[in-house]
């Protein structure tokens, strides 16, 4: 499984690709593999604001539901509507086409506390 070096990771298996004060958020390859075939993604609405640690939505497989946690605080500026029709994109391309939301960070320094790729991979044991 791959964990690209260009982004940050949370211990809850989300990734963040930071560009200035914005970040794209998705779930990791490990997370999608654990879930199995993703059948539905419950997305937040554009404009919703969240604190760090909030659940912003859910990813469902046939027999499980996992909440998606936002590891930093921010406001949703875009959601990946394409997942509504093709939730399996998360399985096929977790790091690119399978992105979930784009957020505007309240405080970009919050990102510093997140794991890098090596740290995340090590946390999986």
């Amino acid at each position, binding site marked *: 499984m791959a964990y690209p070096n260009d982004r940050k990771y949370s211990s809850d298996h989300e990734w963040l690709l930071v560009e200035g004060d914005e970040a794209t958020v998705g779930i990791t390859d490990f997370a999608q593999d654990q879930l*199995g*075939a993703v*059948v*539905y993604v419950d997305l937040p609405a554009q404009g919703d604001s969240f604190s760090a640690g909030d659940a912003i939505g859910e990813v*469902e*497989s*046939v*027999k499980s539901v996992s909440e998606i946690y936002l590891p930093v605080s921010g406001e949703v500026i875009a959601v990946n509507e394409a997942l509504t029709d093709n*939730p*399996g994109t998360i399985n096929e391309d977790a790091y690119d086409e399978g992105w979930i939301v784009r957020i505007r960070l309240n405080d970009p320094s919050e990102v510093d506390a997140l794991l890098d790729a090596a740290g995340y991979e090590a946390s999986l044991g």
Partner: protein
Amino acid sequence: MPEQNTVTINRGPRETIYDLSDAGKRCLYVDADPALPAVDPVARFGQYAAAEPPALPQVNEVEIMRHYAHLASMNFGVDVGMYPLGSCTMKYNPRSCEDAARLAGFAELHPAQPAQSVQGALRLMHELQTDLGEIAGFPAVSLQPAAGAHGEYTALMVFRAAHAARGNVRRKVILPDTAHGTNPASVAMAGYEVVQIASTPEGLVDLDALRAALDQDTAAFMLTNPNTVGIFDPNILEITAAVHAVGAYAYCDGANLNAILGVVRPGDLGFDALHINLHKTFATPHGGGGPGAGPICVTAELSPYLPGPLVQHVDSAEDSYQLSYPEQSIGRVRSFYGNFGVMVRAWTYIRALGGQGLRDAGQQAVLSANYLRCRLQDAYRVAYDRICMHEFVLSGSPFAKAYGVHTLDIAKRLLDYGFHPPTIYFPLIVDEAMMIEPTETEPMDALDAFADALLAIADEAARDPEMLHNAPWTTPVRRLDEAAAARTPDLCWQAPTADAHGSR
């Protein structure tokens, strides 16, 4: 395709009854009475008249019979073969019970009949209330709940009413992590918060964790005992005492009552309420998912809050029965008096067996489960290696690690051997769980054949994992694409063309 298989059912998919529809075919139709004026729906209902009736299928009786006969042939039931689903108690459904429920004197009763015209039905219900109370060790019983989950909910609302009557609003209900999913869902529907506590490595209630969680805000503790790994909690008296010490109620999920039937009474264990699944312990058929019935039993203290109506024996001289509400009843939890047809079957089963027969049944259920456990313990890992009650849990994790063969694969392969698989992936605390409940009504050769099949599959797992990954091979359909079903839900048949069958 493997060589070994025992085909019990094998008819391929069939088109739907809607695909069979052909305009002009009829089955059930009523000719208008010529002596009465015809009703014109538009004149009568105006905008509320349907432009045309619903586009239901147009088929003849013989086609319906063949259709459903075909569908039946694609199904597995207790009469087809062993059905060892853990916590589901798939015992034989006696036919005398079926015939009893179909007697006109039971099946053709309208709920609005005067009480004096249904004395036999009320007597039957009263006797069932009394017998269930005696079997479970409680003085009061409501037959109203329609299912186990409904019984859980009802009991929680009884607790809520009892706490409220003392001016004591409590907010949380504690459950162990082995609980059936209905327990937390019922707690939430009753307006309580769920507090889950971890079990011990043996799958038992962790008394320290329980004591730490219990406080004055605890309304109740819910426990399945014997629990969902098939073990009777030896600390049960301490557990219920601890619950009572903070003024909370102890609830017993009676899903596993069959294990202690006629041997132990939950009411003697300090529980304040219990639901009984008539469709498990008392042999009423599961019907492909229902109807069942989930009567609840409660202590004398809680009896004033039971849902109504209850059946009361009013006048011993006249020997008559009537329906009544307890003084502080929570009200009713459904329409009418409960799933009466299911009660008739359970009553019949109880009368057929009697007290001794029930005890024999419970003991045999435990004996058969332990026998099966011993037959499997060398080839499979028994999750809790000790004497079990009516069911036990195997873990498929060694096969997963060694061969990549998962519990799902083993379960699917069992279908090729002509057995229904056990409950799988429950309880959640056991990795790759297989929960096996043979019940007392399986003949010994069926138990042996089932054990032999699982042993053969254990060999196959080592020899040919790929074959197991693709099992079953012999069923009417093979593994189904559940992800596709969930991604693009097709929940309702659509006419291929609007003009052929009418469109909605």
